[in-house]
């Protein structure tokens, strides 16, 4: 499931991952490290909400 950053609007897509920060494609949002931050704005995981498809 995709997750949206509530602060800046960035969408984490597990199919894409976050390669710039060593997060491989296929990584579910729940499996991101606790200290992972939004690559656009630096928000923590707790600032994200699931995106309904």
């Amino acid at each position, binding site marked *: 499931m995709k997750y949206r950053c*509530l*602060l*800046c609007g960035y969408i984490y897509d597990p199919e894409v991952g976050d390669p710039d920060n060593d997060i491989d494609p296929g990584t579910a949002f729940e499996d991101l490290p606790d200290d992972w931050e939004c690559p*656009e*704005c*630096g*928000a923590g995981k707790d*600032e994200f909400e699931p995106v309904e498809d």
Partner: protein
Amino acid sequence: MNSIEVKKGIYWVGSVDWNVRDFHGYTTSRGSSYNAYLIVDEKIALIDSVKHGFRQDMLAKIAEHVDPSKIDYVISNHTEPDHSGELLAVMQQAPQSQLIASAKGEKGLRQYYPGDYPCRVVKTGDTLNLGRYELSFINTPMLHWPDSMFTYLASEKLLFSMDAFGQHLASNQRFDVDVDFDILMHEAKTYYANIIMHLGSIVAKTLKAASELAIETVCPSHGVIWTKHLPDIISRYQDWCAFKPAGKVLVIYDSMWHSTEMMAEQIVAGATEEGVQAQLIRLPNHDLTNVVTEILDADAVVVGSPTLNNGMMPTVAAFLTYIKGLKPAKKIGFAFGSHGWSGGGAAQVGQEMEATGIEIVREPIVCQYRPDQAVLDQCLSAGKELAQHAKSC
């Protein structure tokens, strides 16, 4: 106006923009200022610059203390062009100077101002020694852009807070104690509501982190410097980021032939009967900047629109679009409005209100052509219910 000394060797070298009234849509009724700060030490640093167009003003103030070509470091706390607009001009005058910015700051600045200039990227905990003074940096992402950072001077208990704690307030005075307290707090509230209302969770975290620093003076990028009233503004920020309500009802509407207006007046009458503050706000007569400032600490926000071409009026749509991005929290409300035939305006308002985060407490109150007594009674009763909610908060 000349430069003003903030602390020994630290000067305000910014510009006052007395006559600006439209700041990317924010109505700056009292003008603004773009605050740049110069630190003259063994090394010379400039913290932020001014909006494009105020270059000579800033350079003249710098030149009161030092030849601008001698500047060693140009620190950008925030990429937005009202602060970065003349950074490049300074660096061109001082070719040996180095830009200091956050990682996101460097990225944004190089896009705004392409050029081959040296940049040191800093993050929380990094320091810059100027001689007598040592600056440190604190990333504050999304307060209110990803690049935002504070620059802190521990030895002087001085925080350069960029847009945080700012106010669009033009004055020839530079310190909080030298301007009218109520006007200052009103402009700080207007700034908070329109610029960072939607970032309350980040504000709360930043206030908590800042509480661990010794701070006596806060130098923001707009308006006056906080000294004596620093505890007051921190207390207000704590209230604002928690959306602490002030016990008031806002009735915001537009009207074509006074029917929606009659409904709005009855809602206000209901709240008034309960002894609660209520305001009647007809949108075209108010600018959104001030409406949003009122929304920040409102308990209830109801929104009315007649049906125009099967939808809501554009004035109401513009208002709802603006507040949707600002995410007002801890408010209840509902939609209302009149229509001639098929209707749809009030229902559309209700849907958009829900998307802003306002808790919808009833179906839209609607009427055809003119509200009859039953509809007016319904509006009166609804106004009383909103007021009772406001009293219970």
